[in-house]
């Protein structure tokens, strides 16, 4: 599992100088701080949360010291979010106590938690994109003069907090014009303006680019040095390895254990999270590849119309596309699927001898896509499992446009069984399924069409470990049956575990192609950042 550390990890190993300087400074600051440390900033004592008939949290205790970055990890449903909601005053616990600087506290609202210095930054940012940066920072707490908002004071004060998070924009900028990474920093500035001593960050990097992630880490480190404590929640273990002073692991609502800075490593975290040894995470089997299925020649996507792309895939081959966020990977898939039709170039798949102009054309040719955002583009949320599963095969099975109920039932039954979709029945609305089961529904819909090329965009985003494993297994099985698979992933582990061959993209170009034996983190990283491929791989011309 040595190769399995993530891209991020590598990046951080090559951390920027600025960050390094900050670390040096912080180690000194921390030494002085640890001497004066008395009671923890925040203490959670035997907190439990019962919902009508399930224990979301059971007897969880933890402490948070001043100037500490504490990572809380666990699978989906482990109780992380419930715990954070309790700390931030969104929900109240059914048992146990909270202490802030030694004083017992109980929050019945977010305002009370804010007053105690605890601030939660949600995964989805809560900013008004139509308002200016300064207005957002002081929203609800605007300084006033004669009953009117004191614009000059807003600006002055906002500048102060923006500087703290190292964000060099005017308080007069509209938030909507900032990148997601910068918006996140505005959110942190807003938290600081409430004099927060504890910042809770829930999956802060899930939509950040590499560079933005780096910046965020710099800011978190700097805040720690000022004595601010951070509770950091992330599925990206590489980030945690880099950033956390200590890791607390939850499983099924219970505290499982913790790892100190020097015990921190990827495998230890994973095995504590899942409660078993995960040395064999991927079922690696060599795929027999057949004839070429898809040939793409000089294809130009509307996102990067000046950069032609060429590659091909064989039957039974799994090809991964690696690269950083914004490299044009998803855009390539949506173009092959006919959602964003190609502007030029040629493509061949079976009878289809040009790039598809519509999804209808793509699907008829046997090209399907399980998109990145299931809820937005993959599922009809208000419809049942059955109706979602049969949606893509309705036309094929219909007679004169009339629904064929029995084949609809058969498709639904077969796919539910094949994919082991856990639901309360065919008629359950998909909205209330877990992420893993939702993804299975999307896959089932496509498998029913018997595709020749299955494309997946971030196939396991937001899915817990167990379901991930099932989806990987399925991909291998499909490849074994001769389906060509093309997938995009930002998780290095996935690329390593699944790909027979890896394409690496950088700023709209395919910068390299790596066979299985050429695959290494250094090679991928080099190509993904636009480096020279010859330095990383033996051959790849």
């Amino acid at each position, binding site marked *: 599992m040595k190769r399995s550390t993530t891209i991020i990890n590598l990046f951080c190993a090559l951390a920027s100088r600025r960050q390094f300087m900050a670390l040096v400074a912080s180690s000194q600051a921390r030494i002085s701080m640890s001497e004066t440390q008395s009671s923890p900033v925040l203490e959670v004592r035997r907190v439990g949360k019962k919902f009508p008939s399930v224990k979301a949290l059971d007897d969880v205790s933890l402490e948070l010291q001043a100037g500490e970055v504490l990572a809380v990890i666990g699978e989906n449903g482990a109780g992380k979010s419930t715990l954070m909601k309790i700390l931030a005053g969104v929900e109240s616990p059914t048992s146990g106590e909270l202490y802030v600087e030694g004083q017992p506290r109980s929050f019945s609202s977010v305002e009370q938690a804010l007053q105690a210095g605890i601030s939660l930054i949600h995964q989805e940012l809560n900013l008004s994109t139509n308002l200016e940066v300064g207005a957002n920072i002081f929203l609800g707490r605007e300084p006033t003069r004669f009953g009117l908002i004191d614009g000059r004071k807003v600006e002055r004060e906002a500048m102060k907090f923006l500087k703290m998070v190292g964000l060099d924009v005017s308080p007069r900028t509209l938030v909507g014009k900032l990148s997601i990474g910068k918006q996140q920093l505005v959110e942190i500035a807003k938290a600081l303006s409430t004099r927060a001593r504890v910042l809770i960050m829930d999956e802060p990097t899930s939509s950040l680019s590499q560079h933005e992630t780096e910046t965020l880490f710099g800011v978190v480190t700097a805040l720690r040095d000022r004595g601010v404590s951070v509770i950091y929640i992330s599925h990206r273990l590489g980030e945690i390895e880099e950033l956390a002073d200590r890791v607390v692991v939850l499983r099924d609502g219970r505290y499982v254990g913790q790892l100190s800075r020097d015990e921190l490593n990827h495998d230890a975290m994973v095995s504590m999270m899942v409660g078993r040894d995960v040395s064999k995470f991927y079922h690696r089997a060599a795929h027999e590849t057949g004839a070429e299925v898809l040939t793409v020649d000089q294809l130009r996507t509307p996102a990067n119309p000046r950069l032609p792309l060429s590659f091909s895939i064989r039957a039974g081959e799994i090809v991964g596309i690696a690269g950083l966020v914004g490299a044009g990977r998803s855009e390539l898939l949506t173009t092959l699927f006919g959602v964003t039709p190609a502007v030029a170039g040629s493509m061949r798949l079976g009878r289809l001898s040009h790039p598809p102009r519509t*999804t*209808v054309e793509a699907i008829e040719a046997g090209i399907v*896509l399980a998109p990145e955002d299931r809820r937005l583009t993959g*599922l009809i949320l208000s419809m049942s499992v059955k109706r979602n599963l049969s949606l893509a095969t*309705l*036309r094929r099975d219909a007679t004169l446009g009339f629904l064929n109920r029995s084949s609809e039932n058969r498709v639904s039954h077969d796919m539910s069984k094949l994919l082991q979709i856990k639901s309360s029945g065919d008629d359950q609305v998909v909205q*209330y399924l877990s992420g893993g089961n939702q993804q299975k529904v999307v896959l089932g819909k496509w498998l029913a069409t018997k595709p020749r090329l299955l494309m997946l965009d971030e196939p396991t985003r937001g899915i817990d470990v167990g379901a991930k494993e099932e989806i990987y297994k399925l991909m291998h099985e499909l490849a074994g049956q001769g389906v060509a698979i093309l997938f995009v992933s930002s998780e290095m582990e996935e690329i390593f575990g699944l790909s027979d061959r890896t394409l690496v993209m950088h700023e709209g170009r395919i910068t390299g192609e790596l066979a299985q034996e050429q695959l290494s983190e250094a090679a991928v990283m080099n190509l993904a950042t636009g480096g020279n491929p010859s330095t990383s791989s033996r051959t790849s011309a």
Partner: protein
Amino acid sequence: MTSTQSTTDSLPRRIATRLRTGGKIYGILGLLVMICAYTAIASDRFLLVGNVENLVHRTALFGILSIGAALVIITGGIDLSIGSVVCLVGVLLPYLLVEHQWSVPVAVTTVLALSLGVGLVHGLLVTKLRLQPFVVTLCGLLFYRGLARGITNDQSQGFGLEFKGLRSIATGRLPIFGEAEGAFHLPATTLVLIIFAIVAAVFLNKTIYGRYLLALGNNPEAAKYSGINTDRMVLLAYAVCSTLAGFGGMLFVLDINAAQPSDFGNFYELYAIAAAVLGGCSLRGGEGSILGVVIGAAVMVVLSNTINLVHPKYQNIEFAIIGAVILAGAIVDELVRRWLAVRRAARQSEKP
């Protein structure tokens, strides 16, 4: 646990399932029965054969408009131009027949083709230019009304004593219970409604296109990603809606025999939309049933009759009463929805 069927469900859970699937129809049917019962008790004229015939007749006319409105609402859109299309067709038909002496088939084909064209234009503007349905059809509301008044020079149009045969489509009464003087005669328009309603219900529930319509109404992007030609389906919905509005307009003018361009069909789009919403269509799209919509139209018609018969002195506040009843329905609907959501959450937490 792959697919445990609901054979062993508890009673409250069965009720919840029932309410979720057919609940809105039961709800609106219950409302209709309650209003009818109240009116029958409060006024001895409500159950007179003539009154019932008239109610069925008016329900048929408004039901036709409402089915069209419902199809558009299911796509997540709206059509505010229905009343103006009713007016345009309503004045044009007698204008062409009487003033210009067109033959009946040509005139009828022309007005129906015109309303189909109107719907296609709406659909194209919504799908190809991505204009908002509200804006497109609001402009339509103004445009067709203005057109109708312009063409006719704002003069009232009618058939006089001519065209009895044609008019009998709308005025005819079928003696299904015998020819006797006091027997119930089924208004011919009811047959028209039944035909349209069956075709629409079959379309919505039994064909893949109906499924596509429901799917894209809930999530147009996901529908597109599933290989559905969403633009074509939306276009179809607007075309059908305007055509039904045109057909309705024709029946209205054949029935009343007089159309004043300045107010013929006024507010009819709102009646149609209200009936669709009462009948279970969500304005967010993706939901609706034809039977519910027809019952919704009946509620609108009966409610107005109730005010006439029981509280004639409240006639001036008819709109206020109708508004209040619909609002009450929407509130009850929302409360039931929340109750179901709470039940669902409780049920989900039962299984860890």
